[in-house]
């Protein structure tokens, strides 16, 4: 299975949200990483067939998805970043409704609804009205909905936002379990979500794909560029102006900071092994500076 994104762009009135984005995805988990407003959601909406690209095509095994129509959505699971649930439905009714929208027959739907409820750990709350659900429970139900038809292509937009650590781990494991024979595209700001499961990371900035690579390669690319040093309180603001500063931690002997820089920022700086967070800083901090 091969999902080909071919030079797609999306322009809103005066805003270019996605700019000639091209990528080819095969089975596995892909992480879409980028700052707010990078165009992740817009890209995913086009992949979920609820928005049309201004230009470009999306192909599944060389077939244009806009021509595949129902057949494409039949193998698609989509969790939007923002969505609402019917307040006076309970989880069973909600999932049964989506099961029928996804074309599952009645018998199949019944067992499948129970299965996905179990996957997201909501069996106990399955008879409760959705208006009584907490934020995290709603998102889990959204995930359950996306999984109903056992999709070959799963697109999840910030699926872990609002989940507690335990549920986040559960979701991460769920993804790596099912990712073997399907394409999963996941966007997030929480880099630890993807650390262990992403086959590749797509870095997106201002609508463009700026980097695409495995996690190892990304970490390699910032090797020898991450530093740790202790500074005085007074020097901090100056450093923040000239370097990409990560964690700032108060220690007994002043302040310990983490800096991502091509050159050694200060004589007493120690080189440390990079994390994905450093990668994120390395690629996106500049933008943050521009925005300020």
């Amino acid at each position, binding site marked *: 299975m091969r999902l080909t994104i071919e030079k797609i762009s999306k322009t809103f009135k005066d805003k270019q949200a996605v700019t000639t984005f091209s990528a080819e995805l095969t089975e596995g988990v892909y992480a879409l990483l980028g700052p707010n407003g990078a165009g992740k959601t817009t890209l995913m909406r086009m992949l979920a067939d609820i*928005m049309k690209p201004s230009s470009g095509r999306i192909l599944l095994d060389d077939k244009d998805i806009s021509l595949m129509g129902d057949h494409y959505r039949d193998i698609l699971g989509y969790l939007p970043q923002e969505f609402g649930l019917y307040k006076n439905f309970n989880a069973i009714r909600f999932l049964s409704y989506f099961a029928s*929208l996804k074309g599952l027959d009645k018998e199949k739907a019944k067992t499948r609804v129970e299965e996905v409820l179990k996957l997201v750990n909501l069996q106990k709350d399955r008879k409760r009205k959705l208006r009584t659900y907490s934020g995290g429970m709603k998102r889990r139900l959204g995930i359950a909905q996306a999984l109903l038809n056992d999709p070959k292509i799963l697109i999840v937009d910030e699926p872990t936002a609002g989940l507690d650590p335990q549920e986040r781990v559960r979701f991460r494991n769920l993804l790596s379990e099912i990712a073997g024979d399907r394409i999963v595209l996941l966007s997030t700001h929480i880099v630890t979500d993807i650390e262990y499961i992403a086959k590749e990371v797509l870095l997106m900035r201002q609508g463009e794909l700026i980097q695409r690579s495995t996690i190892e390669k990304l970490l390699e690319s910032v090797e020898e560029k991450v530093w740790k040093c202790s500074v005085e309180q007074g020097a901090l603001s100056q450093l923040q102006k000239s370097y990409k500063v990560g964690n700032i931690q108060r220690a007994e002997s002043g302040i310990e900071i983490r800096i991502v820089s091509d050159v050694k920022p200060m004589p007493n700086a120690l080189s440390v092994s990079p994390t994905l967070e450093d990668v994120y800083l390395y690629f996106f901090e500049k933008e943050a500076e521009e925005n300020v």
Partner: protein
Amino acid sequence: MYKQECYKIFTRKSLYFAFLLFVLFMVILPGGSTPIIQTDEYQTLYEEWRGPLSRTEIDLANQKLEELQNRIDQEMEQTEDLEVVFPPQSIEEQAAFRVYSSVASIGRYIDSFQQRKEDLQEATRGSTTTAYESEEARLELNMLNELGQPFGFYNTTAWGNTVDFINVFAFIILTILIVLGLSPVFADEHSQKSISLIRSTKHGKRKIVTTKILASCTYIVSLFVTLHIINVALEVRKFGALMDGTVPLQNLFLFIQSPFSLTIWQYYAIALGIQFFASLVIGLLVLFLSIVTRNGMLTFFISGAVIGTPFLFRQLGIDQPFIQYVTQFSYAELMRVKGLFDQFVAFPLFDQPVLYPVLLISTFLLVAILTMYLIYHQYKNQQIMN
């Protein structure tokens, strides 16, 4: 899917609340027959006169009415007491007055019916009319001839009320409840932000539309049936029974000038059918607006304006030719039904007169098909921006 779509509509409490309010209104509405009709005196006389009327019978009634009138006048003169405007009459006199004046006015209807036929006869000869006008006159004349002489003396108050309900209260209640009930059908998926979930599913672009239309029809059917059953039940409670449904439609006061050869019963069935059809067409309009505006409130007001404005024009008596066309071919007129049948109206189509009801119903059949197409088309091509 169908079950849940129905669930979405039928669990809205505001609809039940509005419906109950309307029913309550119907119940407390004054009505029923006037006391005099229920007296034995009236009933005896009514039985005697009931049925088709001959010339002599009508003359007799007129004569008796005159006698009665004279007697009342005399009594009036004799009455000293100025406080009493009408002298007290006996029940018998009141009943007689009632029967004879009814028969007398039926006599006048028969006269003007004859007169109308003669006028039409004249018009068909075409000395003062255009070719089309005489064509139209011929059509009407044929219909009147087929009708024979429809008038007779019958007590049709109960039927009159039942039929009248269609063009007044049923029109208002159904329209409001349909607009209220169906405005959110598509729009709420946006306000509840469930639309992106739906549209990314296999059946989220076509079958969902069919299902929502079916659920909306289910709502309309239940509303329609319940409302009319309640009405008939209320009329029966007021009048005891619906009598004389098998007499010609022209014996209902509202349809004296109708050229259609129908019994009251037949008309009632046809009118219900047309009103039901109109309900569906209005339902489709609301669904379409619900898709386009993506906003339930806006849908409610726009539908209200589209349906209500022509009705308002009519009530205000605005009658510029163009406005009149708009009014005649409006959702409201179709929904009220009465205007289709209460007099002869025809429009020229390729120089041939076509009856208004035929034209109106055909027009709205086309409108329904077009709306249906637009609904599917519009929904399919919609994009989700937020």
